[in-house]
């Protein structure tokens, strides 16, 4: 070996070093192209598994209901998930009433249409399992959920267009846990074109299946309005593979329902204390009951409702969930308990099997009307009875005005082995309302009542909520605070009439406010008459006496358009209620919306818009609006609905529709009553104000 050869050998590293130094500078510039190549390679790996889905054989009505924003008639995408022709697509492309769909297989010789059968549906995630007789190659590689990281590349692959290669949208992973645990989020452009397609990583592995999944509610078509907004969702592939055997088996997977209502309204701040446990629900069958505080789910601590939702929302009907609750010791069981130091709450662990739907619910009552309490400052401690509904079980059992209800002994629930029979302490009217609402009609409750310092337990059998108003309602109800007695004309200063001024409200509604007992919480009537533009002070006159006698604030909004009530009027009404709440204490259990003529249908829309806050809706000479949704009654969301009809042509015109509406409401578990009208078809202001007082009925 010569010296020269030796030299050449040791000079090589320097050549390499020089090359590397230069190459590393070049790499920075080459990175975008390397990424571009990687994106294309990733798409190539799944391209053969991405198919086009065409909606077929559906009705116009199904199309209209499945998509407000984008028509579902255009093609969409699906992804082959298993050998044997198994394809997942979205219910956007394959609406509920479609039994088959058309799959277009990509091929060199142009796309080929195939008929696919709908085998299974996942109603919780909005996905549909299809099957064709051929076996295109499935996606084989996927990313476990645990490996996902926000910020990583995501590529959305679609096949809505009849292109030779699938369509591509590129973004990053925006979040790994959305829709209460059911989806991951990306900023790639997601639209009907790639719904059903795979979201893949830079290596071509499937992250999830793109779907118009709403971030919150269980309804499936609310996600579509987010298309191309930098917000898109994908159901994790891992989650779908887990349920694939069930879908292949022809199952329809539904969201799992537990059957409880919470006392807190805000899921992010409120603790998971059970206000109502639906009779016959999985929660009731497992022995849970009102007053219990859920402290753990699947072994994970729960301090707020939201944490519980994260555990429950991804689960299907039929899935089980382990819950731990804390229950206050039953102090009413023994008379001494109250004087002793409160025993520590007991901890109960249960396993609950979630169901698809709860048995229908009818609102039960006892016949007790508690004294009013304000939203802001609920009265703590036992519930004081203001008056008792004549002829009700409570009246028969001897409950009287002035009694203090301290505790309730619930009926023994079916399968309850965890100590029902203990009394649940009552610390507010809403606690009592929750317990009553969770009692089956016909079941017997024990009420622990303090009357003049003496405690006794009275048994009361609950009955179904009455629908009609008794003829002597006005006599039954004690006058509000210092209101003048019935029949006596109110003094001029018993009410004030003022405008509820609010920012950005051009025509502030008129409000009739009782001026006496101003610290007592008020009931509220929003009265929506036939639209006629701005409201004038004279229209307040007919409400003054009723408002003063029953402690009801009456809000009289005008319509922005003199011809019709519109969307903008709803905003004004909401602001008026907010303004009223800053002036006076409001009883949240006594808010009603009343409408006449065209204002009647609008009253229903206002109530829908205000949500469960509205406890009563009365429609005079009006049916429900044609687009009305009638939700099944459930505790905390039930409404007392009344129809009133003046004996004239206008009332006769709507009566067939009112009859149909009554049937709908009855089927939904909230039968409507009849509003007795005033003389000459006048608005029965006094009856309506008394009804608002009666909305507090338990």
């Amino acid at each position, binding site marked *: 070996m010569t010296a020269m050869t030796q030299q050449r050998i040791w*000079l090589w590293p320097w050549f390499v070093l020089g090359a590397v130094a230069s190459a590393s500078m*070049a790499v920075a510039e080459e990175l975008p192209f390397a990424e571009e190549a990687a994106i294309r390679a990733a798409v190539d790996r799944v391209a053969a598994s991405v198919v086009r889905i065409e909606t*077929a054989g*559906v009705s116009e009505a199904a199309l209209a209901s499945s998509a407000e*924003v984008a028509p579902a008639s255009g093609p969409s995408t699906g992804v082959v998930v298993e050998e044997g022709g198994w394809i997942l697509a979205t219910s956007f492309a394959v609406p509920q009433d479609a039994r088959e769909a058309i799959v277009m297989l990509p091929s060199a010789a142009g796309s080929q249409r195939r008929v696919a059968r709908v085998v299974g549906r996942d109603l919780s995630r909005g996905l549909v399992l299809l099957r064709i007789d051929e076996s295109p190659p499935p996606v084989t590689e996927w990313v476990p959920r645990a490996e996902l990281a926000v910020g990583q590349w995501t590529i959305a692959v679609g096949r809505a267009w*009849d292109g030779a290669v699938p369509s591509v*949208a590129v973004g990053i992973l925006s979040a790994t846990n959305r829709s209460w645990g059911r989806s991951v989020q990306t900023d790639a452009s997601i639209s009907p074109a790639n719904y059903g397609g795979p979201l893949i990583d830079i290596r071509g592995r499937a992250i999830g299946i793109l779907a118009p999944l709403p971030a919150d509610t269980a309804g499936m078509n609310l996600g579509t309005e987010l298309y191309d907004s930098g917000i898109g969702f994908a159901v994790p592939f891992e989650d779908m593979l887990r349920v694939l055997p069930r879908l292949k088996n022809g199952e329809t997977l539904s969201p799992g329902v537990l059957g409880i209502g919470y006392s807190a309204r805000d899921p992010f701040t409120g603790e998971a204390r059970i206000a109502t446990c639906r009779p016959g629900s999985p929660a009731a069958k497992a022995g849970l009951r009102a007053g219990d505080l859920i402290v753990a789910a699947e072994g994970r601590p729960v301090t707020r409702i939201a944490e519980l939702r994260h555990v429950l929302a991804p689960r299907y009907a039929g899935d089980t969930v382990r819950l731990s609750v804390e229950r206050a010791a039953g102090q009413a069981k023994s008379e001494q308990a109250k004087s002793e130091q409160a025993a520590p709450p007991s901890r109960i662990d249960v396993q609950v099997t979630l169901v698809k739907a709860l048995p229908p619910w009818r609102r039960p009552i006892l016949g007790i009307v508690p004294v009013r309490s304000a939203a802001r400052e609920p009265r703590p401690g036992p519930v004081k009875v203001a008056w008792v509904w004549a002829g009700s079980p409570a009246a028969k059992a001897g409950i009287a005005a002035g009694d203090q209800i301290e505790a309730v002994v619930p009926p023994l629930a079916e399968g309850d082995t965890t100590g029902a029979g203990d009394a649940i302490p009552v610390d507010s009217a809403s606690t009592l309302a929750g317990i009553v609402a969770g009692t089956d009609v016909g079941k017997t409750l024990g009420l622990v009542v303090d009357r003049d310092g003496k405690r006794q337990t009275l048994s009361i059998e609950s009955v179904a909520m009455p629908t009609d108003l008794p003829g002597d309602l006005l006599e039954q109800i004690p006058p509000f605070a210092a209101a003048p007695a019935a029949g006596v004309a109110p003094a001029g200063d018993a009410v004030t009439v003022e405008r509820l001024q609010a920012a950005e409200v051009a025509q502030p509604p008129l409000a009739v406010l009782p001026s006496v007992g101003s610290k007592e919480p008020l009931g509220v009537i929003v009265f929506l008459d036939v639209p006629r533009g701005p409201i004038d002070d004279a229209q307040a006159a007919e409400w003054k006496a009723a408002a003063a006698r029953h402690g009801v604030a009456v809000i009289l909004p005008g319509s922005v358009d003199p011809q019709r009530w519109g969307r903008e009027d709803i905003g004004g009404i909401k602001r008026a209620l907010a303004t009223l709440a800053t002036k006076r204490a409001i009883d949240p259990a006594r808010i009603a919306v009343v409408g006449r003529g065209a204002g009647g249908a609008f009253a229903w829309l206002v109530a829908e818009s205000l949500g469960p806050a509205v406890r009563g809706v009365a429609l005079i000479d009006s049916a429900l609006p044609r687009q009305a949704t009638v939700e099944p009654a459930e505790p905390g969301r039930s409404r007392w609905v009344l129809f009133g009809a003046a004996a004239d042509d206008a009332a006769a015109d709507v009566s067939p529709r009112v009859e149909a509406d009554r049937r709908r409401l009855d089927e939904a578990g909230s039968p409507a009553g009849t509003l007795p009208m005033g003389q000459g078809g006048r608005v029965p202001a006094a009856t309506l104000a008394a009804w608002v007082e009666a909305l507090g009925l338990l």
Partner: protein
Amino acid sequence: MIRHAGAIRAGLMMVICFMVGSSWMDGIASRAAAASPQETIAGAARKVVKIHGAGGVRGLEAYQTGLLVSPAGHVVTVMSTVLDADELSCVLDDGRRYRATMVGVDPRRELAVLSIEAEDLPAFTLAAGDPVPVGTRIFALSNLFGVAVGDERVSAQHGVVSALVPLEARRGSYEVPYRGDVYILDCTTNNPGSPGGAVIDWRGRLVGMLGKELRASGSGIWLNYAIPTAALNEGYAEIISGTASPAAPAGATASPGFDPAVLGLVLVPDLLDRTPPFIETVVADSPAARAGLRPDDLVIAVGGRSVASRAALQRALAALAAGDAVQLSVVRSGTIVECDLGPRPAAGRKR
């Protein structure tokens, strides 16, 4: 001494080897990427002009974007109402403003060529060629919303080529005369002022030109698309040589009153919009009967294009001109059957 000299020589050799290695690698790199993304954008933006013209009335914009395609000042842009002006001006990247004259239009591709009196301008090279692959990373350079004023550079956006498809294959109804393939872009380019903007790849090569603002009438979906360079090249050549077709090809004339019964086809009655397009009866000895259609067949496509509902079928049949071939795809007991009903009869209800 000799050993010493050897050491120096060895040192020199090391340096030379390092430099040779380094420049060898540079040579490879420079063939691949000549410029950084920033330099690529800067280089291409010099070839993009801001066009100001008519408009400003009825909420229409008075500005759009154009591409310099010759050093002598030819500008290709999108044919639009902005160009319906007595005075047109182009503002270059350096702020120079020129009065522009209309050279000609290509109504089929909705292109226009303007000319400005200037020389030695930086320009894109239009050429025939294969389209870029789906997934290609792109920059879009345009005067979106007219925010680039005077010598301010046009705005740059980034994205990828999402698809290469015929424009008519888009979902919904987009009324455009252009029938060739377009790039669908994964990039929010559908903005006022963007039409005529440049779409380049990350090496600075012209991929296409941003099309006019398009929105599906039914769904409201905005469409981000670009006309490929090859189509621009054809249109430009036709305009310059004066051979552009003067009128857009006549589309099918819709006849909303068209009744499928003239084909011998009776659909299941549609009560309350709840009925899919099932065939109820086939009239004996009709085109439908001769094509082999049967009761209970579910129609899924007309002429290869899918129809999801009864109304969609009605629209698709109405969109065929008299004499067009009527081809229906139907589902019959789980399989697809193709039926050829022959030419569509003249519109009108059967007596």
